[in-house]
């Protein structure tokens, strides 16, 4: 097989940090090549070097692409050669339609006048290819993150792509959407497109990849043939240690029921006749970790947010009982006062003030705890922030560090610290490990277990079924706004959850 891409001894330094240290990457034509590594290992930096975001000359080493020495100075240079990169953070214009986004900068136009028929026809074709059932005229903002991801891929396909780079493409996707996407990659491979996939999800890597390159701390650790490769081997190379048990042990000791929700129904805020949550009832006990499984769009986040101070939806009805007594959860501050905490799935936009420090964010939900008569005690704030930093092993030079500068795992620890400081009884964790690397995931799991051991009631929403199976005592299965089943840990399996969803 010929090699389409050969990156040799790539070294990239930032002031004070060596992000890449003689990294080698060799990708064969027509294969799917996976790059694995923890967050901060240098995967994204490597891709930025490749795509010309870091121009030739700003790094050491050589890139050979499609037969010659490549010296890309801009993203446009690499795109002109058929390298298309889809970033973790989506680059769509939310107010424009799907079709407009796909052909942005590449409009189907004659003399500057857009040919809408052609645009829509091509868009429909591309959407079919990526398995997205939406009208080309749909505004991107109105569809979920998962679908937006598919639009991104359709956009990449609209260009003459030879080497497709996907950075964490399934991070925001559901099991079945992920599968669709991976199958799509295999299909593209059959058509001769070479792909590089960066992913934390090792089962997916095994599913699509032909070759795996593992990067750790800015250096290439290994290049592995995906055939017969075990996940444990990849994990071992990624973290540099054996991770035989990906979920920490916990002895479940559930106490009395803390939160009980009865017949909870929620209507869509904009679409009057759409009932998004339909008469959901559930309960959580003290010291229990309860999972909510379901596909994207099944209403899990909407359920959580409607419970937490009616932060989502309209015409909310139903009853919430805390320790058997009705509780008013109609405002966020009321819900916090009642002992609820909600760790959002979108920590950058809904969870943190990125421009502010760790200390600022840690105390934000409980300023009363660090003030007297409305006057803040900064020293006390520092002490609180330091306490949680130590407790969660947040890696940062100082609690005065801006949270925007932290890695995903450390940001999530700050969000958790913020909510723990409100001393909640019930914690709702919405996708607590999304976009977090393996090592940090384990730490988050350990924190969750410690919380349960302290007697907190934990509700865990996750799209990663192994995570729910590994962590939860009980799992509710949600589909189309209703709970369709409840499984005890012992009887739960991925197959049973999926069959509950599918048979409904």
């Amino acid at each position: 097989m010929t090699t389409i891409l050969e990156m040799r001894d790539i070294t990239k330094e930032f002031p004070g940090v060596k992000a890449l240290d003689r990294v080698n990457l060799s990708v064969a034509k027509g294969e799917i090549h996976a790059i694995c590594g923890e967050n901060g290992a240098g995967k994204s930096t490597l891709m930025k070097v490749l795509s010309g975001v870091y121009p030739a000359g700003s790094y050491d080493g050589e890139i050979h692409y499609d037969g010659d020495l490549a010296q890309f100075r801009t993203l446009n240079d690499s795109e002109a050669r058929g390298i298309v990169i889809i970033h973790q953070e989506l680059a769509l214009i939310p107010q424009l339609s799907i079709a407009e986004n796909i052909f942005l900068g590449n409009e189907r136009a004659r003399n500057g006048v857009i040919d809408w028929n052609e645009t829509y026809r091509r868009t429909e074709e591309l959407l079919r290819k990526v398995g997205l059932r939406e009208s080309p005229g749909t505004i991107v903002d109105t569809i979920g993150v998962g679908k937006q991801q598919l639009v991104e891929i359709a956009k990449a396909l609209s260009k003459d792509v030879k080497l497709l780079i996907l950075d964490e493409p399934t991070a925001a996707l559901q099991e079945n959407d992920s599968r669709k996407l991976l199958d799509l990659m295999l299909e593209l491979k059959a058509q001769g497109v070479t792909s590089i996939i960066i992913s934390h999800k090792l089962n997916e890597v095994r599913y699509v990849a032909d070759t795996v390159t593992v990067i750790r701390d800015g250096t290439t650790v290994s290049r592995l043939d995906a055939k017969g490769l075990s996940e444990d081997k990849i994990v071992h190379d990624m973290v540099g240690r054996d991770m035989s048990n990906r979920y920490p042990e916990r002895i479940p000791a559930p106490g009395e029921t803390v939160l009980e929700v009865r017949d909870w129904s929620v209507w869509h805020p904009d679409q009057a006749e759409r009932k998004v949550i339909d008469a959901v009832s559930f309960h959580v006990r003290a010291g229990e970790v309860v999972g909510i499984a379901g596909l994207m769009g099944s209403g899990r986040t909407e359920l959580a947010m409607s419970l937490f101070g009616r932060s989502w939806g309209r015409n909310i009805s139903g009853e919430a009982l805390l320790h058997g007594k009705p509780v008013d959860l109609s405002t966020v501050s009321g819900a916090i006062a009642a002992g609820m905490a909600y760790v959002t799935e979108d920590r950058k936009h809904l969870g943190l003030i990125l421009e502010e420090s760790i200390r600022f964010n840690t105390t934000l939900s409980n300023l009363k705890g660090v003030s007297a008569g409305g006057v803040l005690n900064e020293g006390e704030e520092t002490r609180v922030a330091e306490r949680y930093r130590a407790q969660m092993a947040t890696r940062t030079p100082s609690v005065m560090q801006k949270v925007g500068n932290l890695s995903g795992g450390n940001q999530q620890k700050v969000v958790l610290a913020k909510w723990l400081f409100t001393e909640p009884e019930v914690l709702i964790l919405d996708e607590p490990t999304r976009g977090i690397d393996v090592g940090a995931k384990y730490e988050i799991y350990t924190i969750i277990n410690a919380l349960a051991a302290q007697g907190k009631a934990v509700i865990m929403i996750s799209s990663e079924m192994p995570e729910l199976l590994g962590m939860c005592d009980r799992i509710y299965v949600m589909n189309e706004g209703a709970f369709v089943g409840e499984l005890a840990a012992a009887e739960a399996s991925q197959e049973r959850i999926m069959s509950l969803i599918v048979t409904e």
Partner: protein
Amino acid sequence: MTMQSVETSTGGGEIRAYLKAHMRDYGLLLALIAIMVFFQLVTGGTLMRPVNITNLFLQNSYIIIMALGMLIVIVSGNIDLSVGSVMGFVGAFAAVMIVELHMPVSLTIAASLLMGAAIGAAQGYWIAYWKIPSFIVTLAGMLVFRGASLWLLDGQSVGPFPPSFQLMSTGFIPDIVPDTLSQPLAAIFGLVKINVLCMGFGIAASVALVWMGLRARAREAAYGIVGEPVNFFWLRTLVVIGAILFLCFKLATFRGLPNVFISMGLLTVLYAFVTQNTTIGRRIYALGGNEKAAKLSGIKTERLTFLAFVNMGVLAAFAGLIFAARLNTATPKGGYGLELDVIAAVFIGGASASGGTGKVIGAVVGAFIMGVMNNGMSIMGIGIDYQQMIKGLVLLSAVIFDVYNKRKQA
């Protein structure tokens, strides 16, 4: 000064790192000093004559008072274009009450401040609870209250005010020491007269500043926060104290402390405290930094936005009273275009247009930079045409400097 600069050079890398992170704060102070020195030189010493220093405070007091409210509005992620009009309207309202309806001064002041609060509430309601962009609501407010002033005054100037009202702006705090004592004291320094209260105030403020600074440092050290390097703390404190004493000395050799200087100073201290040290201040920064995250953290973002505009309305009303008192008449054109000076002051002071950042002290220094430039250029006899162009470019440079700094840090 030479002694202090020797001190700073001993610090080395630690200081450089701190300076880099706080470039904006020091840069602003240095810019103000540089601008003052520049105009002092080119105006042949007129800028810093006691009478002119006094005038500088009187002329800029209402800008500074409104900048305090505007800072909060801008930090919360909004803007208020109506303040100039509101200020003019409240001035007209007070004039009608006192001059035409013969109402007592104290009642008029109270009613005017309430009127400001009501105007702020009326605008804040649409912005906070209906999510109508503040730019639009306050643009509407700007037109409405511009028209309302004209209507209320019937197109005429109304005045003059009774002396008790004028005192608010043009009055001075009488000296506690009789002239018979202070004149010999002044003679020692070779001066004609000196206001002992004013000098005493300057010294007391300086001592308080050092004491508070040291206490804050001690507290930081106790909690293990790495703060300002010690050399830098002293250099900065000495510069600020030097400026305070110098200004008080200038004021003391004229007529002493203007009343408006006291109200402005107290308000500045109050707002600096509220924004930096209280929970409500913290919540405003959170609201401007990320409204959705703030809301999900239990912060009542709507109410906070509403209150920011009520507060702005009260301060605009207060500024309107001072302005009317200073001119001793309310004119239909009162406050015209002043909102732009106020907004410019806040942005020169380092606030970000996207919300979440900015400091009260920055806004006040920003207002002084604008004020000194206005004053200095007028003394030099530069035409209003050039003045506006220069002010515009200064505003742009300040913001470019911000963006450039941010980029370098990233």
